[in-house]
């Protein structure tokens, strides 16, 4: 069965304290690995798509990387406005997104 697992469930950081979020996946025929950000009361907002092992993408303080079994979202020197839930999703061979449960990130000033 296709599955996406994210860890940790919740993460508290001090402003400026860098860290990484993990996404492990078992998705048959994986076409792509997606990262979304979700703020309270809002729908997910697209961040990155990764298609092949070794690929990296960056956006401001965020960098996403992909291996054959995992993806990492690295957050460098986070700010309070980076507080949100970060969702990882694997796209299967039928273009369906299979989401993990997310990591709730809180960055304290």
């Amino acid at each position, binding site marked *: 069965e296709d599955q*996406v697992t994210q860890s940790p469930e919740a993460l508290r950081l001090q402003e400026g304290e860098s860290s990484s979020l993990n996404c492990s996946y078992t998705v048959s025929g994986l*076409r*792509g690995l*997606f990262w979304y950000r979700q703020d309270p*009361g*809002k*729908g*997910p*907002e*697209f961040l990155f*798509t990764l298609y092949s092992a070794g690929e990296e993408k960056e956006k401001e303080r965020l960098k996403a990387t992909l291996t054959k079994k995992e993806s990492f979202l690295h957050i460098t020197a986070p700010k309070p406005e980076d507080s949100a839930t970060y*969702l990882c*999703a694997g*796209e299967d061979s*039928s*273009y*369906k*997104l299979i*989401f*993990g*449960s*997310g990591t709730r990130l809180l960055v304290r000033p």
Partner: protein
Amino acid sequence: EAGVAQSPRYKIIEKRQSVAFWCNPISGHATLYWYQQILGQGPKLLIQFQNNGVVDDSQLPKDRFSAERLKGVDSTLKIQPAKLEDSAVYLCASSSSTVANYYEQYFGPGTRLTVT
């Protein structure tokens, strides 16, 4: 560019009642998705439309849930009768994906349903 619109934003109903949600996708987006997001979980796909045809409804509880997309634009999702376990946020998303090309999905703000 206007985003995905959903209404209502909040709905409280009693179990066994019926409810309907509406979604207006981004103009020109052929693909429309309905997701269910239970508190503390990621979104789960319920149904996917390509224009006004159903592509995937394998996870839609068809005994109580129904969805339609008339004229390939707006869509409605209905629950009848509702159960307590249907309490969740219902998200609508759209994309310009086709069979040949995949593009990212844009999500609406969701409808928070509480069944009492």
